[in-house]
């Protein structure tokens, strides 16, 4: 298991992929910031300083996952919600990191934090949207 390195620069941008089911009429749901059981409290992100949004998207889709686009929050926006962010590279993704929900065990509390991250991401908008040929 790779070491986790705490991210401390408030302005650092953390990309998050948007599953197609979570994008309706150009608006995404707060669920893109909700951890599922398989995440084990670690919500995956890509660090902008190590990867562009387009590269992050292509890498994600290349691993067989679905993404309708990329948005972002910042390290500062996470820490304002008492969520730490970490750099945690993976073999296939050196830009990988995560937002730490391990200290937020309550489902309702996770949902509330996810909604606030979504509002922040909504203000930022989409960083990358693949050309679907439409």
């Amino acid at each position, binding site marked *: 298991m790779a070491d986790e390195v705490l991210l401390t620069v408030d302005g650092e941008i953390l990309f998050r992929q948007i599953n197609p*089911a979570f994008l309706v009429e150009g*608006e995404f749901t707060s669920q893109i910031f909700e951890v*599922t059981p398989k995440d084990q409290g670690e919500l995956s992100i890509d660090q902008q300083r190590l990867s562009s949004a387009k590269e992050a998207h292509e890498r994600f889709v290349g691993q067989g996952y*679905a993404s309708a686009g990329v948005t972002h929050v910042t390290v500062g926006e996470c820490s304002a919600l008492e969520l730490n962010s970490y750099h945690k590279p993976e073999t296939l993704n050196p830009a990988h990191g995560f937002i730490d929900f391990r200290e937020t065990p309550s489902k309702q509390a996770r949902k509330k934090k996810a909604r606030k991250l979504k509002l922040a991401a909504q203000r930022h908008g989409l960083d990358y949207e693949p050309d679907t040929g439409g």
Partner: protein
Amino acid sequence: MSDDDESEFVRARFSGRRYQDGTLPLTALPELISYERILTELARWCYKQDHPERSRVPKNFTKQLALGLEGIERGSAIARLVRPSEGLPLREQDYFTRARDLLSRAIAGETPAVEELDRVPRNVRNALSKFGRTLEAGDSISLEWGGISHSTYDLVRRRAMQQQLHAEYDESFNEVGLLTGISKGTRKIDFQLYNGTSLSGNLTTATVDADLSFQYVDESRPYVRVVGTSTHYASGALKLLEVEEVEYLGEISPDFEAHFGRIAALEAGWLDGSGAAIAPSAIRNALELTRRLVWVHAFSAPRVYPTPEGGVQAEWTGGRWSTMVEVDPEGDFFAHAVDDADEEHERTAKAVDMNDILKFISSYVEKRGASDGG
């Protein structure tokens, strides 16, 4: 015109969705006629109270009122009612001003006025029963003069006053529910409200949506909007008096229903290998909640998403609050609203009863037309 114009008697401010563009629909004009009629009858009664020795009011008594509609102003729609500018009596002798004030204080629920109204004869009660018949949920008529709003008449106040004055009373009926029966032969309709109340009405003069007979052949209990007049009884019973229109509601919108269908069809693993299939109870309750919000309560349709646990999440943005409701796989509800201007300001609700969630949403989601582009 200034507020102290002697001829301006009252401003009737009509508020509600129908009046938002500053237009007073012609269907609302009977309210102004009813208002004048009440004041005339009340003024007569007040005069006779002061002059028990006289069996009639003085000659030309009612001509002192003779309200005229001088104009409609915006905000929402304000009807400016004026009196004849010449020959007005001294204020202390003015029974019409007294009647105006008495009615307004009774509408405002002031006990002495309410008790005084309890003593009025049948002709005044009959006049009162007509006032407010066109009001719908969310509508109100504020009575203003001298630059002050003195009282607001809405369905709640109307019902309270009508129950005080009458064993039964009529009001407009505009409800959404389930069509449980319709017969072209007998021109009869059976209808069930969301609270379970079953109603029957005659379609004698009604316009029936052409799609309806087609939709009802399989007895699938489609959603319809029924518009007409109803009678309320002291017992709490409700009777459909006259049905003017039966509108088949069909679907919220083709795009919305298609999107809902796609969510319902998601198979397990839809979220990159995880993500449960969406539970039928979540689909059923989310769709029912949306229909009630859109059709009954006039909210915009939310954006709807599946949840990884097999539920459905509805979200509204664009108003002051960003609001969501999650319907979990068991069909239970969790709602959360965040103030966009101050994210520390948030509200949550958990409920099994859909009505509780409807109340929550009503507090935080804007209705259609409440903001531009709504």
